[in-house]
Structures are given as C-alpha cells and as structure tokens.
C-alpha cells in the first residue's frame, strides 16, 4: 500500500513524475502550470526526483532538449499550456513523427486574446491533430495515476509516441483532494525496464542518420514518406489497445480502475446521455445522479478520457445505448461554430446504425465553473431533442450570463 496525502493536481502530477523515475525533466513556468514546475524543481532539489533538471530559456527549447535527451535514450517529462504550448509548437508537432515517447502534462488553459490566464481546454484541443496521445483526467488521483501510466503507454513498442496527460487549469491544478501515492517498488515493477531509443538513436555506438531527407516527386521519396505516415497512424491505433491494457493492469495492481478510453456512467436504462471531458465530469455525474434519482429522468453520462487517438469504437458502443446526446466542450471549434468534441462525435455517428440527435454546449471558458445547475440545463435541453425538439445550429454557451 502506498501513502495517502492531500494535494492538488499539480503536485499529484509531480508525484507521478517522481515515481516514473525520469532521467530528465525540463520546465519553463506558465500559469496555471507554474506550481507543477515548482514542485518538480523542489522534488529534484530534495532528491525525490533524481533527474537532470533543465531550466531552459523557453518552451521551444524545453521540448527540444527533451528530444535530444530522448534520442540519446532518456526518459523525459515536461509540462506546459496555453501560449507556452503555442511557442513549443514547432518541436511539438515534430515529436510524434520522431516517435519519441516523451510525456507532458498540459495544465489546460484558455487561449488568448482577450487576455486570460484561466482554465479552458482551447490549448489541448488546438493541438489535437499532431499525433500526440491525449488523455484528459477527471480528478487529482487520476492525474497522478495517469502520469505514471502515460510513460508505459508512450514507451510501448507498438506505440512509441508522445503522450499528453491533460488536467484542467484552476480546477485540477489547484483543487486539493486526498490521494494515494503508490509505492515506488510497485511502480518500478509496473513500468519495467525503460528503452526509449531502441528504434531511433543518436548514439556513436549505433550510428545512424536521424530524420533523413525524402527526395521529392519522381523518386521513392513520397512513397517512403507515406510509409512513415502510415506507421505513425498505426502507432496511434495501437495506442487504443495499449491504453486499455495498461489501465487494466493498473487496476489490477493498484486497485483503481479508470475507464481507459470512454467511461460509461449510468447508461443502463438511459435514453439519453451527457458527454463530458475532464474535471467537469464530477459535476456532470452529480447532476445525472440527481436527475435520475430525484427526478426519474432516464439520463446517463459518457466521459471521454482518451481524446487522441479518437476512441471511435468505444464511443459508438456507448452512444448506441442512447437516443440523444448533449456534448459539453470546454473549448471552441471556430470553424464549425460548436465545440470540437461535439464535432468529432457527430463524425463518429456515421458509424452508428442510426445516428442520434446531439446538441453542442460550450462551457467553462476562461476559468468559469461548470456547475450542477449548468448540467441541469444540459440535461433539460438534451431531453427536449430526445423528445423531438429541433437541434439548434448554434451551440449553447453555458456561461454566457454567469
């Protein structure tokens, strides 16, 4: 049994990092990630994390030093969000095709402008199409557990991809809960031997050219390029399986059974469902409980944990159990005038034998709370379309007047 402590999500992530025994951590501070950077630095200072701490001059270099270290064989971790992530983008969207199993927390933050240093998932959602694995956590314990699992997923030979463990700025970064910190020995056994650069290395003992040019049209270049692309896609698809396996093993070993891809909450006997992501799920579950137990509404909840690779099958299985859905996003898809998760759920429905009506809700922007009351409205609106009401072409903005 591990020890029980009370801490916030940023500290929990730092504990997860400590237990994963990385070789190198690199950080550059940004709200609301800063305290995570501080915890990590303190842990290094106290010898809890025995890694090289690289306090570099910006997020761009943060990820760059980690790439260099990973190519030399290091297990690595960092954390960022918002503008930091944007600045990091150049090396960020090159990490997956390099197939480097770097783990990074995104302490999600809304995008500027207008200026805002508050929570919101605009950052994570904006970078969703780069080949990183994205997992979103619901509570502090899940943050700790998922950070550890992330290393195992990332370094799995069938995956070899970087993983983002996302937890909501403000609500999880600073929200304090009681958590269990597992034993180091147990985690060591769980993670096993690291081997980060067996497939691509910068090592005089195994000299190779890393990331060669592919000649343009006319030669074998483009087809070679396709091979690399397909390999990346295969790694992403494999990740769906590996995420499930790893979560299962985690549950068996530590007794906490987190839904790996999609969580089905009270879908038995439900006619319609609320779809959530991240920390809002707690309030969502409370609202569902109340609606079901006190008002007899036949509503359940679907929580997206893994957003990339998109768990289409698992989602469709859940959706097939209901006849209408209300999808709550914490970010905006400007191109679709809806939430991004909503849009992707619509896409998935193509694979359902009968598509169901669904509404887009956008809430919790710029640090706003999504309360049980907000979910009441979600439930009511969803019930309306279940009963044949029209699906509006506009999203419903939950915090418009709060």
């Amino acid at each position: 049994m591990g020890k029980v402590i009370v801490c916030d999500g940023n500290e929990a992530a730092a504990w997860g990092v400590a237990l994963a025994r990385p070789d190198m951590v690199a950080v550059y501070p940004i709200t609301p990630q800063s305290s995570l950077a501080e915890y990590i630095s303190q842990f290094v200072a106290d010898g809890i994390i025995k890694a090289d701490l690289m306090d570099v001059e910006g997020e761009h270099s943060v990820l760059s030093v980690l790439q260099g270290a990973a190519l030399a064989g290091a297990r690595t971790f960092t954390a960022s969000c918002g503008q930091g992530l944007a600045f990091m983008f150049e090396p960020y969207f090159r990490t997956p095709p390099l197939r480097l199993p770097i783990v990074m927390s995104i302490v999600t933050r809304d995008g500027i402008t207008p200026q805002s240093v508050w929570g919101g998932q605009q950052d994570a959602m904006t970078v969703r199409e780069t080949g990183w694995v994205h997992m979103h956590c619901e509570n502090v314990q899940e943050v700790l557990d998922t950070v550890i699992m992330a290393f195992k997923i990332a370094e799995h030979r069938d995956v070899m991809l970087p993983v983002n463990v996302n937890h909501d700025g403000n609500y999880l970064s600073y929200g304090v809960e009681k958590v269990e910190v597992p034993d180091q020995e147990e985690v060591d056994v769980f993670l096993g031997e690291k081997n980060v650069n067996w497939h691509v290395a910068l090592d005089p003992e195994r000299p190779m050219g890393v990331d060669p040019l592919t000649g343009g049209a006319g030669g074998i270049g483009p087809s070679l390029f396709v091979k690399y692309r397909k390999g990346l896609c295969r790694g992403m698809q494999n990740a769906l399986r590996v995420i499930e396996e790893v979560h299962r093993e985690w549950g068996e070993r530590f007794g906490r059974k987190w839904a790996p891809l999609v969580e089905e909450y009270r879908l038995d006997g439900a006619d319609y469902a609320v779809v959530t992501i991240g920390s809002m799920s707690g309030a969502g579950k409370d609202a569902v409980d109340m609606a079901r137990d006190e008002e007899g509404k036949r509503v359940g909840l679907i929580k997206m944990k893994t957003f990339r690779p998109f768990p289409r099958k698992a989602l469709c299985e859940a959706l097939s159990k209901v006849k209408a859905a209300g999808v709550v996003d914490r970010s905006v898809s400007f191109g679709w005038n809806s939430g991004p998760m909503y849009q992707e759920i619509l896409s998935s429905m193509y694979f359902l034998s009968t598509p169901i009506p669904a509404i887009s809700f956008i809430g919790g922007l710029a640090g706003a709370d999504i309360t049980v009351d907000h979910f009441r409205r979600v439930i009511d609106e969803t019930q309306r379309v279940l009963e044949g009401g029209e699906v509006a072409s506009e999203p419903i903005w939950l915090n418009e007047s709060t």
Partner: protein
Amino acid sequence: MGKGYKTIAFYPQRCDGCQKCVEACSEFHAGSTDPVHSRIKVVEAGGAFGLALCRQCGEPQCVMNCPAGALEKDTETGVIKWDRDRCVNCHICTLACPYAGITYNVVSEEVMKCDFCEGDPACVKACPLGALELKRGAEIFNEWAELEDLVVPGISACLGCNSELVLRHTLRRVGSNVVVATPPGCMAGVGTVGVNGKTGVKAPVFHPLLTNTAAMLAGAKRYYKRIGRDVTMIAFGGDGGTADVGFQSLSGAAERGEQMIYICVDNEGYMNTGVQRSSTTPYGAWTSTTPVGTVLRGKSRDAKPMPLLMVMHNCEYVATASTAFMEDYYRKLEKAIEAARRGMAYIHVFSPCPTGWRFPPSKLIEVGRKAVQTNIVPLWEYENRVGRIRFTHPVENPLPVAEYLSLIGKFRHLDEEQIAHIQAQTQRKIEVLKKFTSEQTTTTLHHAA
C-alpha cells in the same frame, strides 16, 4: 619538388622535460652528456614545453641568409647541412632561423645544428615517452589526412562548396564519437543526414529544427553525462540557424554552459533557399531579398557581430576561422574540443559561397584569404580562462577592402561611398576587437553586462 623529407616532430603534451634526448644528442655528437653540445633543447616555461631544434625546413631561412654558402639542403635526405670549412661564424643564421634550430656552442665556439645523426636521430630513440617522432614533413602536415573522412563521397554540395570543406575537415578532427547536428540550410541540404535513408555521414547525425540545434544537443549531452559516457556534441549551423531564428536556443544553451562545439558556417545569407538576406549578410551585399535597383543598393545594414556576442555570453571558447587558414582552424578545433568538456565552444567559420556570392569555384580559397588580409574577417580566439581576445593572425597592414570586394559578384554594384563605408566599418570592427584584447576591458564588459 614534392619530395617527402623527414623531420623530427615534437608532441609537447607527451613531454615531461626529462632531458634524455638532450643527453643522447650531446653523447652522439661530442661524446659527453654536457647539454652545451646538444643540438636539441627542451625547455619549460609557463608550464609548457618548447623545443629548440632544426626543423629541416623546406624553405630554410638559414640557408637563404648565410653569406658564406655554408648551409645547404641535401636534396637526397632533406637535411640542412652545415659546412664547417665554409662557415665564417657570423651568426646571421641564428638570426634567420625562427626556431633556434641553429645555435652557438660556447665550448666549441661555433654554430651547431641537428644533422639527423646519419639518418637515425639519437634523440628520437632516447625519448621514453614518444614525444619525438621521426616523420615525413608531409606526414605531419597531412596528419589530418590520415584521420578518417567521416563524410561519404559524392554528397550533393555545389562545386567549390566551402561548407563541405568545413564539414569534412571538422569531423576528421573531431572524430566519430560524436553526435552531429546539421539544421536546415546548406549543411543539411548537401545530404549530411542522407536522402531516403542513405546517410551522408559515418557518425550519428540528425536534422534539428532550424531553431533548436543547441537545445537538442544540450539534451543529448546531458543524458550522456548522466550515464557516464563521454560523447562530443557538435553542431554545424548556418548563419540563419545561428544568428537569426536559432539565436534564442543558442543563447540559452551558451548561458547555461552546455557542453558542445557549435560551428556557425557563415555564408552570409540563406544560400540553400535561394540566396536571401540573413542578419550576417554584410552591408552592401546583393541578395535576392536585398536586391539592387534604382532605389535599393544591396543590404543597408551591417552584419550582426555573432562571435563577439558569443564572447559576451561567457562561452568557454569563441573563435573565428577561415578555410583559407586551415592550420589555424585545426588549432582552434583542438582548443574547442577541449573547451567543450567544460562548456560551450563556438567557432564562427567564414564560408564564402561560389553559388550565392557569384564567384568562380576556383577562387574559393583566394576569397577566403583576401577576406583575412583585408581584415574583413579578422582571425581571433577567446579563451574564457585567459579572459581576452587574441588575434591568431594579426593583419597590421591590411589590403584595401576593395581587393576583396572586387572578387565577388554580390558586391559588383558597390559605389565608392559604399566601399568607403565598408572600409570604415572594417576599421571600426578591428578597433573594437582590439579593446577586447585587453583583459581589463573584457572583464569590465562582462561585469557590466
């Protein structure tokens, strides 16, 4: 001509000053171990060993200056022979020889010099530490040629490409226990990391981003240190990847004292993408984004003083270099390799580009040499522990800059006023550098900064 005569090479780092060679020489030539008779002298000063010994020069100054015809190079053996009967003891040879290779013996009252002991030098045999070696002159000069060329033949550089020259020579010297970074630019474009999976370099090599070369190398280095492996990190950045978009990561790495050799191959613009301006493009130069027309006359700003900026970063070692001065470059590489064990070593290599600058490939070395002789490219080095800049090839009487500019197409349009600006700017640059040759200035500036 072209004959490889032998000479005695001295490796001071192996020498401990035991004087066995001196005794052996005296013994052979005078039957006594009294060092006064020795033609070889090993001395110590300031913690370093020096050798006074005839180098059996190819263009022997002693021979050229001897008024008595008493010295001559033996065309068979290459040994400079001294003829006692002809010598008039005027000592002009001791003034002509730069190496104290011929000296006065106060006992025999005549000059003496190494005669190779009939072809089998006693000193070489006597040295227990291998600090003296009998070698062909060409071998010493070509010691580097014996080192493995780690770049494959037939990479796709332009005809007369200087970057290729820099790459081949540098890797030769640095060896294969390296991680080589070649960010986008000519170095990457010539195929260092290979094309379609066939590599261009026989060592671990990769493309960093244009923006993160120093950071990626820093990460790899830190990990190797952590696991106790000694691997050298080396970057070949272009001027864009160094002075422009890559500057932040380089600056950060330099400030943190990351251990690597960072070579900026400065061809004064974005040559690989079609000759656009960079911040090191010199004033007046034509590029495709600083064109020449009725209103514009080439670049209107002076180049960013990259190497000095790196001095101000407190790097362990900073130097400028030119492939027209290869010995100078190799010497600097040696220092850089050593300095990179302690922190960042930055070498800014002037790299003329026949394609982008518009001059015939055959003129490459001449352009390089003229750049130095006009002081357009002063050769210097900065060693952190010494604390100041030292000119490694001072040019006290520089040629007019026009002699350099006129070789190069990208300067063809310059008018007199522009040439005057370049001349003045060149002068100013030297004056600024000279300030840094005083330890006081450099430290003061570092403190102020």
